[in-house]
């Protein structure tokens, strides 16, 4: 196995493109090293992107935020502006693993690991986040939900690297939230995760909403029916029940060591309500 530490995206992309064997990108490494250690993967090349300047910064841009691929959860948690604009996204990122893991883990890594239970992904999908991909043929930008295609698989082509995650600018009266269920209070993988992002109109009615679900299908789901259930409402009890029903209806979960189908379906609805309530409060709305 070779370890490379390029300083430009082009160089990184070339290394990955040229490698005949199996090549992996290393950012935080909190998933990659576990797979390496447990023999799940035997890479021929590991490309560490942390020396590429543009992957290490969070920039406030005209269109919102640009979060470098190697920015750690701990760094996100220390970015006041980002926390103010996208508290749900930052909370989701900060839920990944322990304080130790937070010191290394990145949202981009969480996304590229392509686990349906990744905590930051539902929050990013609800936020309508995009990713900037650098590759041999230059750069392209796609929606976050277009990155994972199945457990462990992404739509990235050989030689492509995610440079950064783009979060849109926040309209006034907006709020987001992410909630997950785990059997303990820390250190677990989500059994169910729900992201909600919404914007209210002047009258306090939900004008815009995106609802996403994690760990209930092969990939993270965006659930338009759940959004429809609350758009145009004040999130009264009826709307909340409709939201829960739509969220539960969208689940296509499996029974596994972390939870049962029935459990995931039921709890998806419960968490959708709770997340929506937090998002509403953050948007300045009242139930």
């Amino acid at each position: 196995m070779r370890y490379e530490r390029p300083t430009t995206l082009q160089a990184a992309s070339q290394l990955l493109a040229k490698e005949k064997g199996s090549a992996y990108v290393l950012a935080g490494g909190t998933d990659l090293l576990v797979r390496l250690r447990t023999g799940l993967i035997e890479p021929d090349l590991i490309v560490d992107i942390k020396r590429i300047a543009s992957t290490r910064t969070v920039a406030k841009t005209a269109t919102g935020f640009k979060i470098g691929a190697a920015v750690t959860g701990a760094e996100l948690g220390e970015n006041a502006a980002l926390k103010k604009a996208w508290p749900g996204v930052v909370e989701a990122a900060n839920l990944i693993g322990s304080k130790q893991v937070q010191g290394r883990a990145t949202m981009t890594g969480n996304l590229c690991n392509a686990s349906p239970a990744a905590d930051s992904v539902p929050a990013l999908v609800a936020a309508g986040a995009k990713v900037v991909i650098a590759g041999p043929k230059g750069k392209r930008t796609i929606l976050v939900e277009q990155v994972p295609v199945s457990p462990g698989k992404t739509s990235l082509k050989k030689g492509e690297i995610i440079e950064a995650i783009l979060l849109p600018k926040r309209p006034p009266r907006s709020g987001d939230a992410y909630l997950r269920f785990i059997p303990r209070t820390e250190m677990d993988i989500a059994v169910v995760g729900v992201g909600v992002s919404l914007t209210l109109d002047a009258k306090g009615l939900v004008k815009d909403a995106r609802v996403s679900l994690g760990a209930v299908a092969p990939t993270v789901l965006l659930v338009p029916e759940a959004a429809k259930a609350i758009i145009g409402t004040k999130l009264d009890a009826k709307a909340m029940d409709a939201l829960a029903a739509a969220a539960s209806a969208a689940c296509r979960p499996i029974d596994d060591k972390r939870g049962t189908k029935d459990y995931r379906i039921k709890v998806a609805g419960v968490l959708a309500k709770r997340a929506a309530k937090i998002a509403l409060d953050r948007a300045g709305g009242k139930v």
Partner: protein
Amino acid sequence: MSSVHVSTTINGDPTDYVCDADETLLDVLRNRLGLTGAKEGCSTGDCGACSVTIDGRLTCSCLVLGAEVDGAKIGTIEGMANGEKLHPLQKKFIEHAALQCGICTPGFLIAAKSLLDHNPKPTETEVRFALAGNLCRCTGYDKIVRAVMDTAAELRRA
């Protein structure tokens, strides 16, 4: 297996080593540098026994490649005491009987110090969540939390 030359600073001391590309920082510390204070309890980042700091950030050394830390500043348990003077956390852990077998203790101390460096006045809940990445099977955590709270109080008085 290609090997990598690394120049780093460990507990303030300039340190060079050569390691395999796929070798973890934990293996380098324990097997190449003889710093066995960091322990391997799981090798998956779930137990915190291998906790160290890299450029001031708390992390599991089992989740870091030895090759990654070139130019970085590493902090391990071996560097926690100042000469013959124990760090207040080390003293309080002994006084409060916050250890039984002691295998998790170095990791807890590194994590607790990192907490107090960032938050000198943590609540019990903050302490418990800050230490959630460190597993202890002997104590039920009670005396560990008390030792950390007591140290924080003492450091504030000082």
